[in-house]
């Protein structure tokens, strides 16, 4: 019932969007190679779907995304746990992180090429960079703001150092890390396009850049639609995971 209404909503709003878009094209009198009409884009979408191009690119992108995202998350969580428990060390690392974080991964690209070459690696590195900082910061913050009651309970029950991390700290902060992980999915997916601009010959980002180079804006828009949909899908998957976890952890968030 609820999902049915959501579906109707999505359909209605999509139809509305297409109508507005078509209207802009008609009223503005745009050349199809400058602003393609919905129909041309529809054709492009269909073509990409049918001739298998999409799947190849999608697969490559998802693999790169997974590689960058998961390696970033794991590194960031492990480092975050340590740095969160070692405030003195964090005092030194924090300024560096804070200065590096606001720099666009694009700005780094000369150095990324220097160290990581071209093709898969730079795309993965850029996704890594985009995911790393949100997860690191949310982990450190979570560790530092953790409810001290849990730590007190652990002390009181004389729980050892190893169990302290695995049974108390990690699970206690997991919901907060999850939030960081959620944000990271968004930011790193956004940087997919940038990542696949550095010498990659495949992937959704490359597909868009390539179509743009060929002045096929219909394919650019088709690519944008796929990127948007996949981003949405990834977001929803993470959100479901988060919900499930919140339930386990007894956190109740209204929809």
């Amino acid at each position: 019932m609820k999902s049915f209404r959501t579906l109707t909503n999505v359909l209605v709003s999509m139809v509305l969007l297409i109508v507005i878009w078509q209207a802009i094209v008609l009223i503005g009198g745009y050349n199809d190679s400058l602003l393609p009409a919905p129909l041309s884009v529809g054709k492009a979408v269909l073509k990409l779907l049918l001739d298998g191009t999409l799947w190849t690119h999608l697969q490559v992108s998802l693999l790169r995304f997974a590689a960058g995202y998961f390696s970033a998350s794991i590194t960031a969580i492990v480092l975050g746990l340590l740095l969160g428990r070692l405030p003195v060390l964090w005092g030194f690392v924090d300024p560096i992180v804070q200065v590096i974080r606001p720099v666009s991964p694009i700005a780094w690209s000369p150095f990324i090429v220097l160290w990581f070459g071209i093709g898969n690696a730079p795309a993965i590195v850029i996704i890594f960079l985009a995911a790393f900082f949100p997860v690191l910061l949310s982990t450190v913050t979570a560790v530092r703001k953790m409810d001290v009651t849990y730590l007190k309970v652990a002390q009181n029950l004389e729980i050892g150092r190893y169990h302290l991390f695995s049974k108390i700290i990690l699970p206690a902060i997991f919901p907060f890390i999850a939030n960081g992980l959620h944000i990271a999915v968004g930011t790193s997916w956004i940087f997919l396009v940038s990542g696949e601009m550095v010498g990659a010959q495949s992937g959704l980002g490359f597909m868009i850049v390539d179509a743009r180079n060929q002045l096929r804006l219909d394919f650019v828009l088709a690519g944008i639609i796929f990127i948007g949909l996949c981003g949405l899908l990834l977001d929803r998957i993470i959100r479901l995971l988060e919900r499930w976890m919140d339930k386990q952890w007894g956190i109740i968030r209204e929809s």
Partner: protein
Amino acid sequence: GKTEGDSGHSSADSDLKTIKIGYLPITHAAPLYIEEELGKQHFKHFKLELVKFGSWPDLMDALNTGRIDGASVLVELAMKAKEQGIDLKAVALGHKDGNVIVASNDIHQVADLKGKKFAIPHKFSTHHVLFYEMLKKAGLQYSDVDVVELAPAEMPAALAEGRISGYVVAEPFGAKSVVIKKGKALFQSEEIWKDSVDCALVMRGEILNNHKEASREFITEYLKAGEKAELKDEEAKQILRKYMNIEKDVLDLSLQWISYGDLKLTEEAYEQLRQYMIEMGLSNNPPSFQDFVDNSFIDQVKG
């Protein structure tokens, strides 16, 4: 958001037509720098505004949507846009020759590139054609080498770190690797393809039609600037370095390879290019010489 330029302006108007020309900071656009630098004071029928871009796609977006009136751009990109229905005309060349195939120091002949990575700046570029022709002449298949598109600025670093084994691109990015001794010039472009067509000065059709006086003067001055550039004297180098901020030795080397003397795009050279584009599958129906090339201005000047 209109695609037309402000065609209402008459060239005789007191507020002069501003011609906006896009470029990338490369040696190949030298005539533009010199024209602006030397002519700025005494243009009669127009004002010149040079707009620097960071990459070819950005420049083409602006050109296609009429945000700039013309550009010194890879001619293939302009042809592609023409094919897509954008009204563009090539009125002169940017330069002649001056592209080199750079290879890392362990590459001694074309055959050594087999199975290696090789970078080009853009699928629709003379550099791509040069690369294709080089392989053909050496008897290699296109698929023998792994071609990647890469931003020109990343190429020297990629070559130095062995991420690619060679590249072909506009100057001064080739000279850079040679100067820092991370690579060498394997071929000059004329060794592969004589009279290769590379960057061209491309104008939007409505500018040429609606601002005839301005266009004529602009192109005339452009050709003069080309002659000045061809001198490659200290003054010219000074101006180039002002626009490109590169080391002196890199500039000197890249100037050795290039010429700005005769900037007319001939029909033979253009037909050769068309053939390559069809052959390489870059375009099914590249615009014809008559449609795309407008030599009327250059012919007027040359008399």
